[in-house]
């Protein structure tokens, strides 16, 4: 049995130059507060996103005709892992660049593509994901938000929840029941909903750290043109689940606590301690392994394969790793969690946000269920 086909990764020849470009850009933007550099892909900074757009670092793999740069997938991988390792504030454009843009290019009609894709590549249009609803979390096939046809328009009613970045986004790609009375995976479609459409309202949800990152989104008789349907009517489930390999295996699934690991190394430089040293060794080994695993999924995606099982393994291991770091650091170093020291502040912050790492993007239990199915169980 071999669950993860391992192969050599051909890193692009431009990797070194791309890394230098990203490092310079991040340094110029200013590194800022170490707490903001933790879990940085939820930190929205539209000005930084525009800078990346100007530098040609968004929509990197997309056709030039749609504002992209026709570079290869692994070049993009190099750029995003650099941004995350540096703790850059990439939250505003993250979802649009990672999955909404590719989805629009793959399935969107010309009108949708022209309207959104070039703007995403410029770092000017941001997107959110409308999957979860109050009654539909892990059991996503139970979504109830509805789309009803009225002449040549669609009328949307219902509610999404936990929508990351809805308040800074320009559009949502939502999974919606487009056939009245349909059940489960059937009768679902994806729609592109401009956030400024009449009838769309966004209500903040404050998380346990006091931050506003996710939201409730309400739809009240939201009228959309026929062109708002993404892909095929009734194929929403298949379309939405096909994006998951993109969503699950990226370097954001193991790097959310990298800044804390680096703070731990900095601490160890000044305060030699065998226990901390050994912890640094173990965490470094894990980071090195996860990077190879994540990049090897990226290489498979680049070749047009769909390594869904491998992607799920990367997310599960990566989330456990980034989740364990704050706890391990707290156990290894005496600190005043309420104090001003950077190590303590980042630890305190990550202790609070890390429970979300194994929830967002599919919970640990759901991922393990997918892996079990891949093993031939169930």
């Amino acid at each position, binding site marked *: 049995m071999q669950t993860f086909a391992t192969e050599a990764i051909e*890193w692009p020849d431009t990797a070194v130059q791309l890394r230098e470009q990203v490092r310079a850009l991040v340094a110029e933007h200013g590194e800022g507060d170490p707490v903001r550099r933790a879990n940085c892909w939820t930190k929205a900074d539209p000005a930084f996103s525009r800078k990346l757009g100007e530098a040609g670092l968004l929509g990197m793999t997309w056709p030039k005709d749609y504002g992209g740069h026709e570079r290869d997938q692994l070049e993009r991988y190099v750029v995003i892992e650099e941004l995350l390792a540096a703790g850059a504030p990439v939250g505003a454009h993250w979802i649009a660049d990672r999955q909404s843009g590719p989805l629009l290019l793959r399935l969107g009609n010309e009108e949708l593509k022209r309207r959104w894709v070039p703007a995403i590549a410029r770092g000017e249009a941001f997107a959110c994901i409308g999957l979860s609803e109050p009654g539909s979390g892990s059991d996503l096939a139970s979504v109830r938000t509805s789309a009803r046809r009225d002449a040549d328009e669609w009328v949307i009613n219902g509610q999404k929840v936990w929508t990351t970045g809805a308040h800074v986004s320009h559009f949502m790609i939502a999974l919606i029941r487009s056939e009245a009375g349909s059940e489960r995976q059937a009768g679902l479609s994806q729609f592109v909903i401009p956030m400024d459409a009449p009838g769309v309202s966004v209500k903040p949800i404050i998380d346990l750290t006091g931050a506003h990152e996710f939201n409730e989104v309400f739809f009240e008789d939201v009228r959309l043109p026929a062109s708002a349907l993404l892909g095929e009517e009734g194929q929403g489930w298949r379309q939405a689940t096909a994006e998951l390999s993109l969503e699950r295996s990226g370097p954001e699934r193991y790097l959310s606590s990298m800044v804390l690991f680096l703070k731990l190394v900095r601490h160890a430089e000044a305060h030699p301690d065998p226990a901390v040293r050994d912890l640094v060794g*173990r965490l470094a080994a894990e*980071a090195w392994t996860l*990077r190879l*695993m994540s990049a090897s999924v990226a290489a498979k995606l680049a070749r047009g394969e769909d390594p869904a099982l491998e992607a799920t393994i990367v997310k*599960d291991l990566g989330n456990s790793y980034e989740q364990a770091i704050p706890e391990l650091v707290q156990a290894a170093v005496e600190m005043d969690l309420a104090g001003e020291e950077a190590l303590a502040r980042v630890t305190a912050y990550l202790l609070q946000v890390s429970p979300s790492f194994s929830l967002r993007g599919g919970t640990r239990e759901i991922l*393990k269920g997918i892996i079990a199915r891949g093993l031939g*169980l169930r």
Partner: protein
Amino acid sequence: MNDTRRMLAEMADPLFAELGPGATMERDWPRIEELGLPQLLVSEADGGFGGSWEDALVVFRLAGFHALALPLPEAIIASRAEEGSDTHFLLGAFARSAQIAGALDAALGIAVAYVNERQQFGRPLGKFQAVQQSLASFACEAAAANCAAMGAAQALDRGEARFEVAAAKLRANRAVGIGTNVAHQVHGAIGFTREYGLHELTRRLWQWRSDFGGDAHWSKVLGEAVIARGADAFWPDLTARTDPEQRD
């Protein structure tokens, strides 16, 4: 996998499967020698196979997978480094990482087959979510050990690979704990018997975890190296280890 490695695998797999944990030096070593496997890394000019570390990974992994009771990995690394040297110790750690990766995959396969067959409460154990989730964790660990061994092999082929081998052995060692626990747990009492072969894998896994440096050794080596380079160097060093040389 390229053609050479596929050929190597096709040659080693059935032989190791046949010899397995019951192999003896007197009876079976000649068959290993006949295939030239101990000379895997010896250059063709010197009458060897001229293989790479990635080729060696294939052989080591299969030796682990089939719990081969012959010192083939030892013989292969002996052609590259003198026993007692630092390099020999490092190469030994790489060999064990690869054997661990193979043995974990084998144990996972046995465990999955077993839970799909064994019935309790009127259905196969594999239908119970608690069993599924444990095996999923095992699969993640086996995957990590395999990727780590591959990364170390590639690094050895590029040159200096102390960091990668240390990381791969540490990662493999960690996978041993979770993997052997789950493999035995889902088997119940049958897995605890001498007759049922699971122990041929798990007892080796426990042994290999200590061979050529356990967790304490390699976490110290790696931790010291990372701290000596400093926080600012960690990420640039990590990426420089895999990036192609820049062309001018």
